[in-house]
């Protein structure tokens, strides 16, 4: 049986969080399919990296170690993965839906003419009957993802092409060590056989950590705070919830004027107009100027101590209570229900 393969993203000689989550999922899929789980690590100074990878239940780890392979650039990583997949012929290949996986995945799938599904939220094994061709496919990978701006959920399959490729965002799958003593075998790749000089035409000039500008307009989830949040410190709870949900923090004018957050986060007539999938209004009374900037949100949760707050009239859920008590509970029960 052909294996399940995980591309391990390496940052500063460490395995990325999303890759460990995918190794866990990959192990479960491999066990269900009764096949091996293989992984590939491409980078530099990878000595000992297997100690971080085998415990997830990896049977074979392929390592490509070369100074020119770190930090990540598209072409050499593509060449290595494409050649290795041609040799190993995995049935499933998983990558993080990160800036690395979403750069590499499509390139690899194009070279191999295999199907790739981006940003899957769930991966399940199942059968498929093609009635027209009168053919039954067993044990396909159902790649389940939202599409159309999150308004539909699609189940995608690749009946004929291999590997069945999927990317998954960080935090979607659960990370779990299978066995700290799990032992697989290492296959060190001769990098010169997998790449050519032409793969190294892109030069890395500079690389540094830099915080993004606030982008509330593009956020699918917004946790917004008003004067009722009470203090700059309490706003940290909003940032925590936004981070956990993968959203951004917004604010009413009253909160910005009180100095709780910067002006770039202001929502409303004098700030930005937003239409996220979910708007969580915390301690916002909901004056008309604020509502004008957010009332087209697909869903609105209003958290307020005042049961008569105007925001409640446009909300889908109204929670009467204290923001400082409710937000930690939302974080807690979100985590409890997703993992």
């Amino acid at each position, binding site marked *: 049986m052909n294996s399940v393969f995980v591309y391990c993203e390496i940052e500063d000689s460490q395995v990325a969080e999303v890759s460990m989550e995918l190794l866990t999922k990959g192990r479960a899929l491999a066990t269900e399919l009764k096949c091996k789980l293989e992984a590939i690590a491409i980078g530099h100074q990878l000595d000992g990296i297997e100690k971080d990878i085998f415990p997830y239940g990896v049977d074979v780890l392929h390592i490509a170690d070369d100074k020119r392979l770190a930090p990540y*650039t598209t072409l050499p990583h593509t060449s290595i993965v494409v050649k290795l997949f041609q040799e190993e012929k995995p049935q499933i290949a998983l990558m993080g839906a990160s800036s690395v996986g979403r750069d590499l995945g499509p390139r690899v799938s194009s070279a191999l003419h295999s199907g*790739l599904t981006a940003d899957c939220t769930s991966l399940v094994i199942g059968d498929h009957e093609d009635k027209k061709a009168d053919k039954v496919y067993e044990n396909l990978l159902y790649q389940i993802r939202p599409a159309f701006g999150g308004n539909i959920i699609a189940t995608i399959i690749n009946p004929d092409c291999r590997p069945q490729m999927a990317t998954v965002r960080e935090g979607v799958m659960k990370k779990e060590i299978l066995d700290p003593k799990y032992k697989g075998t290492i296959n060190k790749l001769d990098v010169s056989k997998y790449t050519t000089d032409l793969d190294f035409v892109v030069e890395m000039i500079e690389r540094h950590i830099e915080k993004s500008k606030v982008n509330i307009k593009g956020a699918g989830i917004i946790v917004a705070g008003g004067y009722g949040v009470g203090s700059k410190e309490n706003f940290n709870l909003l940032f925590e919830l936004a981070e956990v949900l993968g959203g951004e923090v917004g604010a009413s004018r009253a909160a910005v004027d009180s100095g709780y957050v910067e002006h770039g986060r202001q929502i409303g007539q004098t700030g930005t107009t937003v239409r996220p999938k979910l708007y969580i209004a915390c301690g916002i009374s909901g004056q008309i100027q604020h509502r004008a900037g957010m009332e*087209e949100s697909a869903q609105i949760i209003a958290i307020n101590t005042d049961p008569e707050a105007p925001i409640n009239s446009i*909300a889908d859920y109204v929670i009467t209570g204290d923001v400082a008590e409710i937000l930690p509970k939302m974080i807690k029960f979100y985590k409890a229900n997703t993992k």
Partner: protein
Amino acid sequence: MKGYKIIVLAKQVPDTRNVGKDAMKADGTVNRAALPAIFNPEDLNALEQALRIKDKFPGTTITVLTMGPGRAAEIIREGMFRGADDGILLTDRAFAGSDTLATSYAIGQTLKKHGAFDIIIAGRQAIDGDTAQVGPQVAEKLGIPQITYAEEIQSIEKGKVTVKRRLERGVEVVRCPMPLVVTVNSSAPDCRARNAKLIMKYKHAKTISEMQDANEDYLHLYNDRPYLNIKEWTVQDIEVDMKELGLTGSPTKVKKVENVVLQSKGAKVITSSDEDMDQLMRELIENHTIG
């Protein structure tokens, strides 16, 4: 100064960001017909990067290439109103049902036919699918490098393009020889507004199909002013293997589609008790609002 030949890949998409309560049918599913068709937002960021190169290097030409139904010519005109020089509409029933790979194949073959280009610029992803795959797949089909997640094309010197990339936790500046594909993030500058003179110049720009429906009084224009002709290409105009197109050329198949049913109007009032909060988060996860 020498100019560059730039292709901007653009897509006309339904405005999924506008799926508010009014765009939902009574059963809670999306009323697609009610959604306006727009220029994919990140493709506009891409166009702006192309226009900035044209500002810096006079003689640069910008061609907008889009694949879609006949009405997608609208976004080519939209590009012309902002400074693009011409456009190609790739339209054919044979493309229907294409996944990203079949789409990239068609676009790649079109670019091979079109010939000379120095830089292909596209939005990182389209808002109807959010896959971010077509840019890199086109690059692979053409056998040229790609720079994804671009925020700014900083300079072009000695045949090499320097690009600032915006990643999850930081930025990268990379240098790459032409020709190449660049895909642009929404964190890049917004596209400039339409230019009144260009609107006057290009408002009658049309594809051949559109001309057949056009007011006869204007038809002489298309001979007098060749720039008003938007190229309309079908599979006949590019060299393709029909097996690689449409549904048959698509390795991925849609097995099932489930509409996300949004809550009907009327607020649910809940308390801050553990039970209620647990129930709330479960509901939001189940209806795919979060998670």
